[in-house]
């Protein structure tokens, strides 16, 4: 779960990290209220992606009218596929200096890595490419967390020795997001040093491991529902499906992530565009197939669906029956191609044919067939 800026800041504040005063606004009037309380504010689009500044999602408001106008312009704006649902109005900071502080999971090292750089305010990936030495790194032992001397070394390595005390204290607090909240990535960029020497989080990103939701019900409850972007992904999540929207017109269902991904690849190879990734998991139960089909058919762009399942435990004839029932229940009229393999796959194919569904002999053949059918606009 990627938290929005204001949510991430709430969490960081709970760990003792200083944040500027700020208020969420969903309407121009709320922005005016925030202005009257906070004075000049930055009005910031709340979306779980970077680059909102360049996209026009951040505006400074020095008057109540400017605040009102900023909200009117920003809310509803589309930023990298996310429609902005609300803004965060935050007291403007008197910036002396900008620093980068964050952590992420280093997959190769199979460890968390803390990152500190004096080059704050820039995209850290860009810093990593252009000035790799400008980023100091620390791999804390996951049981011990970062030790004081390691944090000091990190800060000195980053050339920030003059801020050693406040920075080591702050990074120690930031790190608590790992044991306390199962954070995978946190980023305070910029970490602002104000003209009077305070160190305060200018922006904040925080990603919580979805696998740890059972340990952090309070986070899920508080932040889980605010924004999910894509409506099909929201619906799929409710139905416990692993679903990713992709923008094409061919719905895809597969069982197993690798199988599903390779199905997408085949559809593109055949000249089509997948509308989604939808992994229904190891089995291929009728109910799950129906849920997946239902979500895919919500999307008016979808012109046809390809189902690719390997019958592991479930037998081919049962998978076929389930697909037929799902189609009938949903009164689906769009082209449907099914490729299945596994035990009793021949019986399964026969059932499909009897019910007017064309089985594909191989995944590649099936991919070509659905592309052909959706291009032609033919109904199966």
């Amino acid at each position: 779960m990627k938290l929005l800026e204001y949510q991430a800041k709430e969490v960081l504040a709970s760990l003792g990290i200083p944040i500027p005063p700020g208020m969420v606004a969903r309407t121009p009037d709320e922005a005016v209220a925030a202005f009257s309380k906070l004075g000049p504010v930055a009005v910031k689009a709340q979306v779980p992606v970077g680059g909102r500044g360049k996209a026009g999602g951040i505006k400074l408001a020095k008057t109540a009218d400017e605040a009102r106008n900023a909200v009117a312009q920003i809310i509803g704006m589309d930023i990298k596929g996310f429609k902005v649902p609300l803004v965060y109005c935050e007291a403007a900071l008197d910036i002396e200096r900008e620093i980068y502080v964050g952590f992420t999971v280093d997959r190769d090292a199979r460890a968390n890595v803390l990152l500190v750089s004096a080059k704050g305010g820039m995209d850290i990936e860009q810093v990593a490419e252009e000035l790799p030495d400008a980023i100091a790194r620390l791999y804390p032992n996951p049981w011990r967390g970062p030790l004081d001397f390691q944090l000091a070394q990190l800060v000195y390595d980053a050339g920030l020795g003059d801020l050693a005390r406040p920075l080591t204290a702050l990074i120690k607090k930031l790190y608590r997001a790992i044991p306390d909240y199962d954070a995978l990535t946190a980023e305070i960029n910029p970490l602002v040093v104000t003209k009077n020497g305070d160190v305060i989080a200018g922006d904040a990103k925080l990603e919580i491991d979805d696998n740890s939701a059972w340990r952090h019900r309070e986070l899920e409850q508080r932040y889980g529902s605010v924004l999910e972007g894509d409506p099909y992904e929201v619906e799929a999540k409710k139905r416990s499906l692993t679903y990713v929207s992709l923008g094409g017109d061919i719905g895809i269902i597969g069982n197993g992530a690798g199988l599903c991904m390779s199905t997408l690849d085949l559809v593109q190879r055949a000249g089509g565009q997948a509308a989604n990734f939808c992994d229904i998991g190891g089995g291929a139960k009728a109910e799950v197939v129906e849920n997946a089909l239902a979500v895919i058919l919500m999307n008016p762009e979808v012109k046809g669906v390809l189902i690719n399942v390997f019958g592991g435990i479930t037998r081919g004839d049962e998978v076929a029956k389930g697909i037929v029932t799902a189609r009938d229940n949903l009164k689906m009229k769009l082209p449907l191609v099914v490729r299945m393999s596994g035990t009793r796959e021949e019986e399964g194919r026969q059932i499909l044919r009897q019910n007017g569904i064309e089985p594909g002999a191989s995944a590649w053949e099936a991919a070509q067939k659905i592309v052909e059918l959706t291009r032609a606009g033919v109904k199966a």
Partner: protein
Amino acid sequence: MSILLDSTTKVIVQGITGREGSFHTEQMQALGTKVVGGTSPGKGGTTHLGLPVFNTVADAVEATGAGASGIFVPAPFAADAIMEAAAAGITLIVCITEGIPIQDMIRVKDFLREHPQARLIGANCPGLITPGQAKIGIIPQRITAPGFVGMVSRSGTLTYEVGSALSAAGMGQSTIVGIGGDPVLGMTFSDVVQLFENDPATTHLVLIGEIGGSVEEHAAGLIARGSRLKTVAFISGRTAPEGKRMGHAGAIISGNRGTAKSKEEAFRKAGVAVAETTDEIVGLLR
């Protein structure tokens, strides 16, 4: 011959009395796997599927001499189960459980440094099978045939597909290892490839990767330094967009890292044939 597992390996199942544990223990037994017991806290002293049940792995190891364990416990308990197995002296730990928090696995990996005897496969993996001999996990026996092809994969059903195709083409397998789809894994491609290199019965290798991370690149690097195996690699997710998790927590492209392109290029550079679809694998391997 085979790697990691054969018909003599004594195996226990952690979580043997659960639904998943029970079902797959029976499947493992059906293949002939030497399952010698299982654990289920509070059920120590009872019998399940004709096998003794113990409260702890230490008890099970002491009583049975087991050297391998398959873990089928729910995600909140899985990290602890892995550490318990390692501390009890188990040398091959196969964790099928999916959905383990990444920070748990990072702590587990550190814990395992103190138990270097323990090899971990997974978590979130289908396990491994030595066709005709034994399996730990959930890979269906019927897609396999004994033979000379080593297989190692990050995917589940995709592996079954490829396995089926190989078996149908008369190319049996020495061992099939599913290393799992999580970002923080136990054994990586490189670890498994190294074992296949040292297994005289394995002459060919199929490597099924996917987008995200760089375990494929590392394996390619290893192979580039010299390999006696005829190898074919396949990467799924060529058309996946950046920043979207494709099912597996580990299958995500960030920036230019973890793309199918970089993985395929690494393999080609290592002299490994790259299949563009799974259908091509059998042909390229011949």
